[in-house]
């Protein structure tokens, strides 16, 4: 409902997150990670969160800092273990955080399903592996599939390159990653961008996330961390 609201600060933008929420956090490693929104969420303090994100944090910043702050009960992700995922690793080994490993394509497709009104879907990924254990399977046209269910978020925190005042978004290079699909899968989508332009300034042909999926926008200073360590 209604066009995107534009906020003056990340703190106001993330005020919508509540204790116990499922929060979809964009980014693939650092690319596309909404650092300013996460920092604001740490200041805001909502706890008992379930985080859905590709990774489980790198170094001491962004998602790793949120984990370190003790606000996260559970992580759904495809690739927690990385050379610099020591914050997560430590919490996990101490039994202080739950982990559900989801194949990366299922993570994306299950959020897409949530956004697209699909109740469940038969998926070829993971058949015969431990990640399909206990899940319903079916053979269709001679191929085996696993039944997968949508992942819906209460809030999505994502990063885009430019928003217009309606809330239309464009991204930049591989920082696009999970942003567009998370925007469709959350009740409230909060976006940090490098710039906000007037409606009409983004060519309608190149909009990646249409305004209908965007609820809250805040402009922040671009901030990049060194990419360290493969995987």
């Amino acid at each position, binding site marked *: 409902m209604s066009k995107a609201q534009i906020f003056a600060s990340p703190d106001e933008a993330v005020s919508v997150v509540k204790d116990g929420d499922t929060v979809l956090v964009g980014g693939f490693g650092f690319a596309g990670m909404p650092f300013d929104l996460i920092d604001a969420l740490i200041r805001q303090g909502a706890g008992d969160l379930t985080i859905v994100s590709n990774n489980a944090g790198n170094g001491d910043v962004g998602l790793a800092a949120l984990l370190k702050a003790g606000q996260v009960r559970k992580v759904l992700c495809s690739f927690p273990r990385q050379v610099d995922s020591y914050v997560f690793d430590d919490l996990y080994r101490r039994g202080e955080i739950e982990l559900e490993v989801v194949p990366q394509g299922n993570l994306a497709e299950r959020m897409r399903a949530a956004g697209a*009104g699909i109740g469940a879907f038969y998926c070829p990924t993971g058949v015969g592996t431990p990640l399909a254990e206990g899940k319903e399977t079916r053979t269709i046209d001679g191929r085996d599939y696993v039944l997968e269910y949508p992942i819906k978020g209460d809030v999505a925190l994502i990063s885009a390159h430019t928003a*217009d005042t309606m809330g*239309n978004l464009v991204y930049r290079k591989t920082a696009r990653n999970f942003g567009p699909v998370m925007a469709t899968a959350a009740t409230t989508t909060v976006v940090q961008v490098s710039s906000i332009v*007037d409606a*009409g300034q*983004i060519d*309608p042909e190149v909009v990646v996330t249409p305004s*209908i999926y965007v609820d809250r926008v805040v402009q922040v200073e671009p901030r990049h961390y060194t990419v360290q360590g493969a995987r």
Partner: protein
Amino acid sequence: MPLNPDQLAARVAQDIEPGSFVNLGIGQPTKVADHLPAEIGVVLHTANGMLGMGPAAVGDEVDPELTNAGKVPVTELPGAAYFHHADSFAMMRGGHLDVCVLGAFQVSASGDLANWDTGAPGSIPAVGGAMDLAIGAKRVYVMMTLFAKNGSPKLVPTCTYPLTGVGCVSRVYTDHAVFEITPDGVRVLESFDTSVEELRARLEVPLVVDVR
């Protein structure tokens, strides 16, 4: 006097909140757009792949590659976005549209909608995006005459025509009255040229009226 189609479109438009994302289907409901002032910032979706649809195109504005779901040439407003059909229907089916407005052959007391096929012998069925809109929009508003040409009511206890969707209609805007489909029954929100008693006499559907 019952409302004419233009008055009815204006009445529907009154209930659309500023800033809503709205799909107006095809045919008559598209007239609702004429009664949505630009300043309230309603964003129109068309199923064939666009948000931010503007008014019908006239003269030089006509572009065969820019039409609405009824294949009528339209225009584009600032802040529009184009997307492909799967994305467009994901938007519809995923529950992101605030309101859609559809025509109907029949609406039942429990909100079932029949608007795609009369089931008449020799008729060629054609559903388009009606079933997707019916189950997808947060609120489904129907805009129709209350009675068919032969005088039979179109708000009925049970639809006799093939269904488009089950229990999906929120409100029914007709030339004689506006009805809300509620768990407690069909509520008369407003009547134009007739009394509730007259409506009760002509409809087989029990009507609920708020005491104001």
